[in-house]
């Protein structure tokens, strides 16, 4: 954003160059190098795995001739470097190849599975932020009080719970017994394929189409897994908020503000919280990035066709096109979120200027 605004400004000479162009160039190079490294490591892993990708396609009873034909068709008879080169070339042309497992182009698969994860991770993060930040603030303001202790326990329990256990129990209680939420899957069957697919995120697509019955149904399905993920990020976010706040609250300007007679609410929520927003956004971005990797176990238990399950299945069958494609997407998001928080620092943190 900053780059675009400034580039038209026609500020001559070096400050602009020094502040924006060179760092941007450096950033671009570092992204490229990291992505390349990521791809190469994944590629090598795929090749050293003692799983024959051909087996996934041809099955148990294939004749040697069939196996050989499949191997040649996949280009597996070529040297590793050559294979990597071909792969890179295709990727640069936007072609991630075809998945062996699903027989669909990887890009198409990712377009299908990633929105599912994105939707889940976003809602999870929203829950984590909406509950976690106030909890952390209150815990910091009332340091040592019972509410601080409760917040601590809530967070630590979040850190310490095996999610698959919790997921199955949650499903049993809220779906099986109480019937408050929808079951495994993203929608009940009869709501499927009703709203046109625009983003692949059903909540958004259904709201867009104005079909609120689909929206309600989708919401009833997503709320339980999202709450589970949200609880995890809540645990993390509330702890971080608390310690950032503690640091701020002991700072001089807060004392000054209090002395000046500003209402306590303004002091805490405007000044102190305002000052930690950058750190907080970094934390939130990180926890978001983590949820975007896809939580395989949550996805398995809730039959959620997301990217975590997709990559795992692909990996276990040595379906390397799919693994590489998934890794690129997840890796890129992580890197971008990282850069995003770095930029924020630059923008808001006086010391970095």
């Amino acid at each position, binding site marked *: 954003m900053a780059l675009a605004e400034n580039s038209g400004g026609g500020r001559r000479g070096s400050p602009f160059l020094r502040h924006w162009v060179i760092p941007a160039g450096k950033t671009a190079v570092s992204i490229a190098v990291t992505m390349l490294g990521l791809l190469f490591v994944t590629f090598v892993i795929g090749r050293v795995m003692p*799983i*024959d990708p051909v*087996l*996934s*396609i041809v*099955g*148990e*009873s*294939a*004749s*040697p*001739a*069939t*196996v050989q034909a499949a191997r040649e068709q996949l280009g597996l008879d070529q040297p590793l470097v050559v294979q990597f080169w071909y792969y890179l070339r295709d990727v640069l042309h936007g072609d991630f190849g075809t*998945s062996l497992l*699903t*027989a*669909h182009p990887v890009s198409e*698969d990712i377009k299908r599975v990633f929105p599912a994860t994105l939707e889940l991770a976003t809602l999870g993060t929203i*829950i984590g932020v909406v509950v976690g930040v106030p909890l952390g603030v209150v815990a910091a303001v009332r340091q040592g009080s019972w509410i601080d202790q409760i917040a601590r326990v809530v967070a630590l329990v*979040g*850190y310490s*719970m095996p*999610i698959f256990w*919790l997921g199955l129990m*949650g*499903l049993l209680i*809220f779906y*099986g017994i109480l*019937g*408050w*939420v*929808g*079951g*495994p899957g993203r929608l*009940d*069957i*009869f709501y*499927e394929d009703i709203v046109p697919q625009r983003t692949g995120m059903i909540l958004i697509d259904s709201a867009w189409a104005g079909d609120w019955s689909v929206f309600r149904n989708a919401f*009833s399905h997503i*709320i*339980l897994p999202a*709450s589970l993920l*949200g*609880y*995890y*990020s*809540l645990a993390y976010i509330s702890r971080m908020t608390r310690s950032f706040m503690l640091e701020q609250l002991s700072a001089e300007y807060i004392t000054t503000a209090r002395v000046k007679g500003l209402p306590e609410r303004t002091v805490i929520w405007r000044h102190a919280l305002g000052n930690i927003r950058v750190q907080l956004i970094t934390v939130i971005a*990180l926890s978001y*990035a*983590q949820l975007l990797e896809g939580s395989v176990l949550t996805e398995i*238990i809730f*039959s959620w*066709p997301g990217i975590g*399950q*997709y990559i795992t*299945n692909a990996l*276990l*069958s*040595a379906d390397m096109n799919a693994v590489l494609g998934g890794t690129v997407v997840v890796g890129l998001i992580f890197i971008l979120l990282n850069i995003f928080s770095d930029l924020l620092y630059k923008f808001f943190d006086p010391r970095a200027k």
Partner: protein
Amino acid sequence: MKRREFLAGTAMAAALSTLPMTLAQAATPPNMLVIANRIDDITTLDPAESFEFAGSDVSRNVYGKLVNFDPMDLDAGYGPDLAESWTVSEDGKTITFKMRAGVKFHSGNPVTAKDAEYSLRRAVILEKTPSFILTQFGFSKDNVEETIKATDDMTLVITTDQKYATSFVLNCLTSTIGGIVDMKTVMEHEVDGDMGNAWLKTNTAGSGAYKLISWKPNESVSLQANPDFYLGKPAMERVIVRHVQESASQRLLLERGDIDVARNLNPEDVKGITGKDGIAIDSELRGRIMYISLNQKHPELSKPEVKEAIKYLIDYEGMQNSFLNGQYAIHQNFLPRTYLGAIDDAPYSLNVEKAKELLAKAGVENLEITAGVRDAQERIEIGQSIQNTLAQAGIKLNLVVGTGKQTLSKYRARELDMYIGAWGPDYPDPQTNAGTFAYNPDNSDDAGLTGLLAWRNAWNPGDLTAQVDAAVIEGDRDTRKKMYEDMQREFLKTSPFAIMFQKIEQTGRRDNVKNLNLGGAITAVSYWPVTK
């Protein structure tokens, strides 16, 4: 910089953030069949390539075949489908099919002998995995022009390289690879001479009861009824198969009426819902067999006494009555029950004393072996039970659990001492199992006959190989039956395979669903007779 554990825990805020919302629907719509199943094994829908369970479930309902099974009477064996009748030549090598008139593909094109010719030739030429089912009759890329031939629009003639039992040939044509595709539609989608393979992987062009609406990998398969199906329009307008991995999840969905059928319930969940209102449980014998095998390269495991001893060290009864309860039945022969020539002999049971005697006789002490197991729950439990009983006779068994592909890779490379595996028949003829368990024409490493279970275990079945060859060309049904029975009795004594169980598929369904047939031991599920 904080990126904690990816498999992290999270939790109960669910309660806080969830407003009560009751689900409107208590049941699925009356003209829709909703099934929960594991469909992650589908990698292609092309009948010339499809070879897995969930794929053949789709194929059976989409593609018609020359000959087929009537789901309401599987015991009758194959009968006419797209071929109305057939005749066999004097020498037994040529079969002439007369096509059924007036049948149309989903595209509206008529089904002709040309389509059948194209479909079978295509399966041979593409050389995909299941192609051996056809090429074992001598068809090859080079001779299909002569051996598979439509002499006119309504007549198809196929000629095998030698005389085979007619039932063998026709049984093979009932398998998925015998599906007849719409030549015109498929060729419109041909890319680089692939005979439409890339397109057919994810699309269908058949004449069966249903047509494919969508296949979302690891998510769902949706089928739409074909109103022009030659046996009449199916009652279920739509069939949706949804991928649900966990048995517990399937059970909850079924209990709440969000699905009609749950196909992967484990014994505990079956027990849990038995007798509940509105739910019925079906048990159907399937063709899959569970076995352990011993690598004959191992100096001790190749001793006849050791092979026999291990067969006495398996707690068949205990497993059948506990964690396999209701889903596997003891079966110690390589042909599944209901197959021609199947026998029920079950001479082995857990007998530690006898096994100890046998081991002492062979002079074997402190034996330590490693077994490969796939990471499927029931197999891991079987593995642990065997580990336990072998230990009682002083044999130490190490289990190495791996993913399916990993374990299989080692097994095919003859690297495992022991393998705990399952085998499902490829087509409904005794040859399918005889030809892999008891057949190994060349036991050398170089032969690379990785498709044969006998070869994978480095076992030379001796004269059984010749007996298998003889049985496929025996035209007389009773003689052929007798041959398989004899083979199995010899196999039971001498082979390094301890065959343990045959699969029983337990299906949970809402009790208003009627006439759902899974296909028994011989074929796949049929949706068209289903009513609600």
